[in-house]
């Protein structure tokens, strides 16, 4: 009996592969943070040894001060967080409500439009970037300066074209399809309008998929480089990824680069850590693997 009992007990060795994988993922981060605290010369010499991962030698926040002096880091961070957060909120609303319409409402051409929409999943931004640029360059906008044409050098040019996407719609559609349709019917019988069903019944149940879509959208937006590079010539509207250019001049100050990278990684980590439980729950429930 004792043999069979012990064989059923989970072995601590089964965690070994997980630990190894975790190390592989954590070490680059560790290297980045440690390097950001070291002068560039020491940083380069430490790369030959394990010291690269340890807070040893001359440790200071000088690289951070230098990074702030070299580039408007605060502005870039604000721009990125503002653009990303606004886009995520817009995308969650627009994608969830269109998925709601695709799943729960009956209308002519519904399935065809959903199919066409999902086909756009395979089209990368690089393909549509130039036509999109030509389009946004002619669009009207009503702002502080009245009616103007052309969206270049603005926040809206970085937000509106990305405020809905096929992947998020797909995630919401898949999740909504699995919800019992009796919930909708019960709400209809109780007298709820479609709008009330959306925000009082469906969205409160869509926490996991909302978190997943939010994280994926956040990462995609925060990491955008090509599009902001094309549409923002003015520093005022540039996000963090464009800001990297300020550090790759003739003499690359690797310490400052690492400090900048550390700074711009913080919002991503905070966002992920806040939503990770819901993210994992959603991946498990939708059967979508990353």
């Amino acid at each position, binding site marked *: 009996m004792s043999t069979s009992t012990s064989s059923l007990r989970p072995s601590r060795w089964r965690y070994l592969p997980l630990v190894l994988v975790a190390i592989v993922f954590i070490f680059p981060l560790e290297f980045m943070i440690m390097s950001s605290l070291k002068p560039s010369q020491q940083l380069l010499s430490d790369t030959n040894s394990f010291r690269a991962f340890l807070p040893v030698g001359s440790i200071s926040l000088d690289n951070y001060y230098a990074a702030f002096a070299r580039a408007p880091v605060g502005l870039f961070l604000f721009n990125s967080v503002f653009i990303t957060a606004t886009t995520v909120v817009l995308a969650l609303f627009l994608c969830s409500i269109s998925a709601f319409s695709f799943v729960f409402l009956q209308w002519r051409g519904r399935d065809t439009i959903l199919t066409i929409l999902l086909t756009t999943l395979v089209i990368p931004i690089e393909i549509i970037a130039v036509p999109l640029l030509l389009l946004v360059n002619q669009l009207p906008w009503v702002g502080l300066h009245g009616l103007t044409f052309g969206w270049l050098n603005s926040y809206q040019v970085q937000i509106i074209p990305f405020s809905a996407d096929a992947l998020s719609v797909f995630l919401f559609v898949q999740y909504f399809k699995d919800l019992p349709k009796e919930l909708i*019917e019960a709400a*209809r*019988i*109780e*007298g709820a309008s479609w709008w009330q069903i959306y925000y009082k019944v469906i969205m409160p149940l869509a926490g996991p998929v909302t978190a997943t879509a939010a994280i994926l959208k956040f990462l995609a937006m925060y990491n955008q480089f090509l599009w902001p590079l094309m549409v923002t010539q003015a520093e005022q509207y540039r996000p963090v990824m464009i800001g990297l250019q300020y550090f790759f001049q003739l003499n690359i100050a690797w310490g400052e680069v690492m400090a900048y990278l550390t700074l711009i990684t913080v919002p991503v980590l905070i966002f992920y850590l806040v939503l990770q439980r819901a993210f994992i729950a959603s991946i498990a429930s939708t059967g979508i693997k990353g």
Partner: protein
Amino acid sequence: MANVQLRDVHKSFGATHIIKGIDLEIAHGEFVVFVGPSGCGKSTLLRMIAGLEDITSGEISIKDRVVNDLPPKDRGIAMVFQSYALFPHMTVRQNVGFGLKINNTPPAELESRVNEAARILKMENLLDRKPSQLSGGQRQRVAIGRAIVRNPEVFLFDEPLSNLDAALRVNTRAEIAKLHNDLGATMIYVTHDQVEAMTLADKIVVLEAGKIRQVGSPLELYHKPNNLFVAGFIGSPKMNFMEVEAVSSSASGVIIKSADFTEQRIPVAKGNVKAGDKLTLGIRPENMRADTKGDLKISGKMELVEHLGHETFVEAKTKSGVSFTGLIDGETLVKLGQDMALSFKANDCHLFDAAGEAVHRLKVPEIVHA
């Protein structure tokens, strides 16, 4: 008066014709049960009355008002679903009060009506729990609470007991019956369980393949089934059917014969039955007795014997290969493989013509007309 009328109601899903011309009158305060096998259209019919499915043609009226184009909320109905359909993120109080809240009922009135529903259903102590913290029976009670709190004209139940275990089903069935007595509202109830139908209904509607096969009180359907389908569907265990031939017919009945029993007069109306007609004799297993004192005797080899204590269920096969079942008294010893004769009264027999329609019985128990 919350009466419900269906006039020549049809429903098709694409090319598939599901509901094929339903005409039905449901009086105010009646408890009507739709029964039938899976796929007969009973749930579709209920959903059409609820407004969850459009009707292809025909007319549905509730309280003498045509509701064909009205949304569910304007029909004066409430519905209880098989899966309960409780909103998982809301407490019981919020679930029950959901309809009142979105219809802007003043908070004080909402509170008092939710409390009243909770009192009627004895679930005052559950109001602050989430559905996930409730048992199946409690969830069903909450679903019923959500229905009664709105004081609907008509209650619709879609197989509400199917997800409950046997004991709970009996209790909840009794609660629904009591609720009907207390509220006096019109109730339409869908089930495939004929015991539920028999115990709850004032009127049973038996459906087959989108058509009504018979409408009547439970005892009427049991004692006077109109056709082979209803005779086979109502009653458990199922009625025995045996092929027989008409020898002669007169005002006092039809004389029949078969390979398995001698000629006997069955007291049914002469109707169109002529000598030589092929008929089907129906006899319920519970009308069989374990002796030969009945008017008709049938012998067979016992192929299944189930001693249930107060009664014994047997299944046997005659020499000519006809299978029949019997529910006989529990004190008679029956063994598997034994040859045994059972008998039954001619008065208990049903006869059906070649088209499967019943030949009118002359002697029906008084209770049917009570």
